[in-house]
């Protein structure tokens, strides 16, 4: 039999015995769905009062130039006006003011001087951009939101109003830009979109955190538990190299982590449809999740590969551990590194494409998942400028991590010293 058959048999042995463990079943198949449910629970804490905008004036300046018979600016204003009468809308009860203003060079200064807040300005090229948009990378039609600093508390509400309109038909691609006062600008890259709320971010962060923790029982069962149960030695006495044993154990865990990644996608769909069904986006001011099958596939790949990196690192590092508790502690300690990198990335990934932080697999995973759900987010050009290109680089990085960690572990502890049972 070939070397591959031996590795496959070892992987199959590990997968079969683990799949019959109730604890592992719970973590692999139930936890992902619970994580998505937990996110809904956390989001519910962010629900805003529906009456925030009641009796407020909203200033709308429509500068849009129709193209032929198409006038998307007017469509926008019409829907906005209708939404002020819908008590499920965040704009419910607001009074729309549409002053006729022309020839203003700096709208920020103008609104500040005239204390017109909140204000929505639809630029002249809105319809033109709407009609010209054909593919990713084309300029996206957008409206501008202006708020006086004293109204900054309305920021999420007004964004929710605009997002609700522009993320639904006939709009499907849109941009929300903020301008608070005259001195503060978020410097949103051209043609990009800012997530309206931290709630949008949570989804991808939660996923990656869960993906880092999920492999732990598989890591600890691969060597440390075998050592405790005295089942390891006869495997080590097999005619297999250290690397092949590590790889077999790794693949055994990888088979089960397919289930974890799949259940995350199931959780994503449940989450999305629950949000759609209950109009939760409006209540928590989130952008509407936009997913397509290819993007779901890429997200699946990203989650899966993230779990594989954690699994490979865990197996490589804990392969010498003789006790499960030691292995668990070590695994948790090692996973502090990606956790710290993710936390660091939150601080410095604010809208900056081509940020070197994305060279690291974990922030990149977050970016890819985020991008999968919010296709027009400012993370469009994380590395290559193309979502597909990013995915391939991401996969390459993660595979290097997986095989690199296993190879280094096999090399460092090799030559019969990997599992020094008599030490």
């Amino acid at each position, binding site marked *: 039999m070939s070397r591959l058959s031996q590795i496959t048999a070892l992987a199959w042995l590990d997968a079969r*015995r683990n799949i019959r463990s109730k604890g592992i079943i719970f973590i692999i198949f139930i936890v992902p769905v619970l994580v998505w449910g937990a996110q809904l629970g956390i989001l519910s804490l962010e629900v805003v009062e529906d009456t925030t905008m009641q009796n407020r004036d909203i200033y709308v300046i429509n500068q849009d130039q129709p193209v032929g018979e198409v006038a998307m600016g007017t469509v926008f204003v019409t829907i906005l006006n209708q939404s002020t009468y819908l008590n499920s809308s965040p704009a419910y009860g607001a009074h729309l003011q549409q002053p006729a203003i022309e020839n203003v060079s700096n709208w920020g200064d103008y609104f500040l001087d005239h204390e017109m807040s909140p204000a929505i300005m639809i630029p002249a090229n809105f319809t033109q951009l709407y009609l010209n948009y054909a593919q990713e990378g084309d300029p996206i039609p957008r409206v501008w939101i202006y708020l006086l600093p004293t109204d900054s508390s309305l920021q999420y509400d007004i964004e929710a109003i605009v997002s609700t309109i522009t993320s639904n038909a006939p709009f499907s691609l849109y941009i929300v830009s903020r301008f608070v006062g005259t001195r503060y600008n978020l410097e949103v890259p051209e043609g990009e979109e800012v997530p309206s709320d931290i709630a949008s971010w949570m989804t991808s962060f939660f996923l990656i955190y869960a993906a880092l923790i999920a492999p732990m029982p598989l890591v600890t069962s691969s060597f440390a538990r075998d050592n405790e149960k005295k089942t390891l030695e*006869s495997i080590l006495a097999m005619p297999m190299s250290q690397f092949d044993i590590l790889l077999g154990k790794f693949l055994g865990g990888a088979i089960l982590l397919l289930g974890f990644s799949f259940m995350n996608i199931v959780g994503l769909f449940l989450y999305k449809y629950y949000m759609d069904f209950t109009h939760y986006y409006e209540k928590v001011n989130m952008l509407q999740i936009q997913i397509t099958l290819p993007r779901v596939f890429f997200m699946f790949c990203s989650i899966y590969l993230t779990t594989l990196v954690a699994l490979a690192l865990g197996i490589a590092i804990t392969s010498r551990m003789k006790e499960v508790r030691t292995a668990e502690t070590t695994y948790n300690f090692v996973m502090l590194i990606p956790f710290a990198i993710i936390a660091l990335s939150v601080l410095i990934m604010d809208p900056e494409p081509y940020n070197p932080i994305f060279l690291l697999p974990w922030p990149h995973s977050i970016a890819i998942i985020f991008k999968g759900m919010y296709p027009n987010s400012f993370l469009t050009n994380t590395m290559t400028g193309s979502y597909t290109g990013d995915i391939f680089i991401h996969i390459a990085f993660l595979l290097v991590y997986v095989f690199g960690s296993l190879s280094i572990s096999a090399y460092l502890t090799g030559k*019969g010293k990997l599992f020094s049972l008599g030490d």
Partner: protein
Amino acid sequence: MAVIKTNKLTKRFKDIVAYQDIDLQINQGEVFGLLGPNGAGKTTLIRTLLGLISPTSGSAEVFGIDIAKDIMSIRKRTSLLPQECQPYENLTARENIRLYGLIHGSKTKEEIDHKTEELIDLIGLRGRENDLTKEFSGGMKRKVLVARALVMDPDLVFLDEPTTGIDILGARTVRNLIAKMSKEMHKTIVLTTHDLNEVGELCDRVGIMVNGKLAAVGTADELEDHFKAAHLEEVFIALATGEGIDQFVTSQVGWD
């Protein structure tokens, strides 16, 4: 023909000597009993012969192959039943046996499947082969482990205290299996045990290790004669307590 041959084989863990200057020859088809008190170095010696631990000095050959040069070729023809080993509890008896055979990789899938069924009959687990081994008694688990050690049809089997921790009936079953392995399958077996009855019943020759040294080697009768002892137990106690080590030089009586 010697299956195992060691020359001044020594293993030290820093200041601790696991075993020292082991000169041993085990021949084809022989059941060799390795005796010694706890910590005498028996298990470490077996692990060395399988390449799980590197010796500090000396050399060893298994099937005429230097263990330092081509351990994989040796492992392809050997199997190990480690001390205190358990089968995978979440696998059935059949899966435990079959998957081990497949991982070993020295036989085809068809051969392993055939051998698995043969061994299930041999160990008397027909009817329970699809049960998870966590539902098995200690004796039944040992049967599975012995079958697992045989599924790849090895030429040399290391059995490290195979009857420790199981009841009398379970031990009896395992002993019968070992006898069958030797007499019917003609395997070379290295058996470590603390049960001297087992040694008398199964082993062609015995080696007694004390404090890392091979204090005596011979058949049970030879050792009893030499020490003028009525039983092998007396020989063992004499050597383990330090009496007689110097008088009885390690020998390979009758097997050269």
